[in-house]
């Protein structure tokens, strides 16, 4: 084929330029360490990289949320654990104070100490976190959840519970409302509570109570009658419609069973003494403690006073036990959530590692490949340059 001289030059030049541009591209890849420098290098890889980066960032956010959740729950756990300690102390004091050998003065001293523990507990329930939010106000985090006025405790929060996102589709509650922690505690034994009539004159004191079968919720009244010669006392149990559901004779320390409930009394009820059995209702922890303290502080002057004191204490102690059970439930709930967070963090970490691996495989340069390609291109460029120089020497005019 006939060639023109310009074309001859041009071809050599184009060959060199092509090699140079390839070399420059490889050089750029090597310098950045990236296989994909712009979407055009590998459109699907570039999109994959974008998505992977999004996912990795999302996991990073989940991790931050999880650590917030851990902090919050640990804080709550600390408070609940302190409250449990206080309750334990209150219980010891109550048992001590309930002892019949105490004088009015020593009971009063114990009552005053319990009142101090009550203040401590109230302060704990009004704890705040690092950013100044009240822990137990539900959503109303800027008002203190519990306030006391004229011996009554009121809850100013709501029953809101904050959740955070710790994984895709996984939310975890990082708070409990004050209502759920301190107020929703069933009174009595959890199914029903027993109280003594206020005008009882006998020495009947409430003991243990429990379930035999399933309790039929209603308000029952146990009314005692005359004492028989053998010392036993007749009684009858009526429901709210005044229907007699059970009747019999009672001796000191025996139990009375009706409608799925079993109550035990001690002492000798007088004729006309009553005890009321009604379904458990929510009793807040502060009122429970307060009623114990009040009972201890009030001096008992008569036998009836003493019996009433022991009955109030028996009721209070059973409420206290409920409160302690409830606190340990709250704590185990928090513990379970902390475990959940831990598990989710492990999942997140594994997932992140995997994503980062794929990301690296997608965008990072295979140096071995790139360097061998670089060397090949370098050789090609050198060859093109040498060929150019050699061929340009050829001209017939040199021989004229």
């Amino acid at each position, binding site marked *: 084929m006939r060639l023109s001289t310009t074309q001859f030059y041009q071809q050599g030049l184009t060959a060199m330029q092509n090699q140079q541009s390839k070399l420059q591209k490889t050089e750029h890849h090597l310098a950045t360490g990236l296989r994909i420098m712009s979407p055009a290098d590998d459109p699907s890889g570039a999109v994959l990289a974008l998505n992977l980066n999004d996912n990795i960032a999302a996991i990073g956010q989940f991790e931050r949320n999880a650590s917030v959740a851990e902090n919050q729950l640990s804080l709550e756990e600390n408070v609940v654990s302190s409250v449990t300690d206080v309750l334990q102390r209150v219980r010891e004091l109550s048992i001590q104070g309930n002892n019949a050998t105490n004088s009015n003065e020593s009971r009063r001293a114990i009552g005053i100490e319990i009142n101090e523990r009550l203040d401590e507990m109230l302060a704990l329930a009004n704890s705040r976190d690092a950013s100044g939010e009240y822990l137990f106000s539900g959503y109303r985090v800027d008002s203190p959840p519990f306030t006391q006025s004229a011996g009554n405790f009121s809850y100013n929060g709501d029953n809101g519970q904050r959740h955070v996102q710790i994984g895709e589709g996984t939310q975890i509650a990082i708070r409990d409302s004050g209502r759920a922690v301190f107020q929703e505690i069933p009174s009595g034994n959890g199914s029903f509570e027993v109280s003594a009539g206020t005008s009882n004159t006998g020495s009947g004191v409430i003991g243990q109570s429990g379930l035999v079968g399933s309790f039929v919720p209603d308000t029952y009244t146990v009314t005692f009658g005359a004492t028989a010669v053998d010392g036993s006392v007749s009684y009858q149990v009526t429901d709210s419609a005044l229907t007699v559901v059970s009747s019999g004779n009672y001796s000191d320390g025996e139990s009375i069973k009706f409608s799925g409930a079993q109550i035990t009394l001690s002492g000798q009820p007088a004729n006309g003494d009553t005890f009321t059995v009604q379904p458990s209702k929510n009793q807040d922890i502060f009122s429970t403690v307060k009623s114990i303290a009040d009972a201890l502080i009030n001096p008992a002057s008569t036998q009836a006073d003493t019996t009433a004191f022991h009955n109030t204490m028996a009721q209070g102690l059973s409420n206290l036990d409920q409160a302690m059970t409830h606190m340990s439930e709250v704590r185990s709930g928090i513990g379970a959530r902390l475990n959940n967070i831990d598990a989710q963090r492990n999942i997140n970490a594994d997932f992140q590692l995997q994503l980062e691996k794929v990301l690296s495989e997608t965008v990072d340069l295979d140096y071995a490949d790139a360097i061998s390609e670089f060397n090949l291109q370098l050789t090609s460029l050198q060859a093109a340059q040498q060929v150019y120089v050699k061929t340009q020497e050829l*001209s017939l005019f040199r021989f004229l």
Partner: protein
Amino acid sequence: MADSLNIGSSALLSLQQAMSAASHNIANVNTEGFSRQKVDFQAAPTQLTGAGYIGSGVTVGGVDRVYDQFLNNQVRNFTSSQSQYEAFHGLTVQVNNVFADSENSLNASLQNFFGALQDVADSPSTLPERQALLGEAANLVDRQQSFNNLLEDLSRDVNGHITTAVTEINSLTASIGKLNHEIVSAIGSSGGKSPNDLLDQRDVLLNRLAEKVNVTVTEQDDGAVNIFVGKGQGLVVGSDVTRLTTVRNSYDTQRLEIGIDGVAGNANITRFLKGGELQGALDFREKVLEPAQMQLGLLSIGLANTLNSQHQLGMDLDGNLGADFFTTVTPSAVASVNNAGTAAPTITIDDVSNLQASDYKLAYDGAQWSLTRGNDGTSVSGAGPLVLDGMTVDVGMGIPATGDSFLLKPAREALTSLSLAISDPRKIAMAAPVIASGDINNLGSGSISGLSVSDPTGLPLPGPISLSFNPDALGVGIPGFDVVGGPGGTIAYDPATQSNGTTFNFTVGGISFDIAGVPGDGDVFVIESNAGGVGDNRNGLLMGELQLKPLLAGNESSYQQVYSGLVADVGIATRQAEANLTVESSLLQEAVNSRESVSGVNLDEEAANLLKLQQSYQAVAQMVSISNEMFQTLIRATGN
């Protein structure tokens, strides 16, 4: 003897001309478009003698350029397509570079925004986190705007390309017109001899013209060429030249197009043009730039609308319902400058999730309206209002004239107008506007949960809605709840059959909730305003969930997927442009090689020619000298 001398001198003259031609070739070895020239030796007319016909030497019949019309046309055509892809590629690469940096991607900004939203959700009552969220939202808007600005710059680049190309085309056609005139007169005055160098010059100009736009060239008998573009619009006819102009799009004055001078003003010939830089720039605008703007715009309008809707269902730190988070602009219908009627259609976006990344064209044909999606031609028609892609176009205003048309660019308009609507961190609505609870003294196991709202109307609730369980709420033995406040009345709920949970809905606020379990008689559940619930993050979590939901493009793509899709489209377009450019470049190279191999100057060949001519010249000189000696011999013989 005299004959030999005559023959000798004719040969010497012819050879000198051939030497000139060879020298001319060598001199023009670097001249663009030069076709090598060749002297056409012809034997001089023979003379009849008694012995027969005897030759009388050599003459130069003409100087021809070695030239192949077919190869030249091929070069011109390939030049057009190569220039087209080169311009397209050059512009597309710029968009590609805009989206190259994955760390500054819009997705990273979206991720930061939603991350900040979750930080607020972690601690909704504290202001620093809220302030940080507003900061990230502003960053997101800035990033969106900077992408928009880069794309706008490219759009102006395209206009620049078009203006320059049109100017160059006009200057080239003017020169070609002049050359036509010179060539015609050169041929006429020389009795038909071809003015080789003028022809070469004209070919060069034609090639340059082909770089700008593909032209059809037809050669006339008188040597002139006529040039046509598009569908036979004449640019050069003989020495008459028609100018191209830039004209403005009838809907968008910022969008330059190409027109041609005509009797009745400028006719827009944009859609007829093929090839060359012009086509490259036009293609880029239509196939890469505007779709990118539409995709980004879809993301803008989608993000603004969906986030706003959820934000409006929340409650801020002051107990007010959320307002707009991002500003949204009601899309407009841009009337064509040619409209004769007074119709002023209005557009409402009903469901942004169905909107497509496209422009829409609204037209009135005298009988009915039609609304057509730009990217695939899907259309609806009727008397109006027209509904397409989650958009309602109301055409009731004004009176349309037949042929009136409007352009709707809901996505692209949103791209340029996205901005942040709130600046007070307290106004971020993280809380849900309602809260539900069972009374503390409830005795049964009934519970209320799953509370949600879907309509800001009627919110915040003016007073609590209480539901008290009544075994005879709907008549003796038909249990349910007596509702006080809100809708009032009663709702049926039978714990015997529904204790696994039943969902109830109230019209007010679109409140929905579940009740499960067995409530005791008189147990009360209350749904009330959450004013004061500053620690609530429920609406924040719902806003956060939007990040991964397929909310856009027909509920198929999440925000980030819209952006990824755009990056993929740009990447693929760039890759294809690269591949096309490589192919077209090598085709052009081959065509140039073929032409060069016929017409190009080869110095070795010229050197060999020079040697040959030199030898011929020496031979002729010898021959003249021999003739001379023979003549002298004869004179000496007769002189003695």
